[in-house]
């Protein structure tokens, strides 16, 4: 029965420990479980666009007469 061959046991157990204690908890801990929208950390809504720092005339909507 090939399951009783103990030569690959070490690498099997080590790779399982690596997956179960490192990879899977990283994936699962990044899930947002909080159901209260006001409790979320504000870094999520922070945008990384460099062109939004300063309001310029370019951002006026199309309907305004500046066009």
């Amino acid at each position, binding site marked *: 029965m*090939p*399951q009783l*061959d103990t030569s690959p046991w070490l690498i*099997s157990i080590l*790779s399982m420990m690596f997956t*179960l*204690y490192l*990879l*899977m908890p*990283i994936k699962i801990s990044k899930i947002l479980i909080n159901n209260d929208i006001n409790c979320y950390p504000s870094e999520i809504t922070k945008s990384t666009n460099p062109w939004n720092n300063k309001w310029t005339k370019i951002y006026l909507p199309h309907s305004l007469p500046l066009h």
Partner: protein
Amino acid sequence: MNENLFTSFSTPTLMGLPIIIMIIAFPALLYPTSNRLISNRIRTLQQYLINLILKQMMAIHSPKGRTWSLMLMSLIIFIASTNLLGLLPHTFTPTTQLSINLGLAIPLWAGAVILGFRYKFKTSVSHFLPQGTPILLIPMLIIIETISLFIQPMALAVRLTANITAGHLLMHLIGAATLALFSISTSTALITFIILLLLTMLEFAVALIQAYVFTLLVSLYLHDNT
């Protein structure tokens, strides 16, 4: 015939390289993460399912038991995805290996028992003697309870191994039988129907994961709270 049947359970190596590392780590790839509040359907579905399982699993625990939530969620997701991926043809299922299941069962059971003995020593020791036993039966009952405690990790590991291995073996056998009977067309309809039924029943390998984590859970609960 015997050698042919069991070769699918030998640890896969590719020209001497152990690719089992990649096979075990592969299910972690199927759960993408993102920092966004709302992402695509797959992430939303996984978030919903994991949230559901978390609430179901951790509802009965005290706050001290709930510190194990990440561990138990990781455990159930790992075993569930590994078993489900193993239902695809020609795949290798890591949970058929006794090594991996022992490595799953023994540390987690030992952690629960040690936690119980450390924080609630009297309660944990009192589990060895149920209430209301006759005085003459006490020595024998303590021996029996000790044996039943130490057999818990072995039972966890062997249960998972045996169930998944038996299911895979049966699928191999019945598939081979169907192929052999294909020339005789009267029995093939019946055999393929049995394969379909068996595959459906094997999908309830996921129920086995439920059983695994529940058993572990009950042990943790018992040693932690009562």
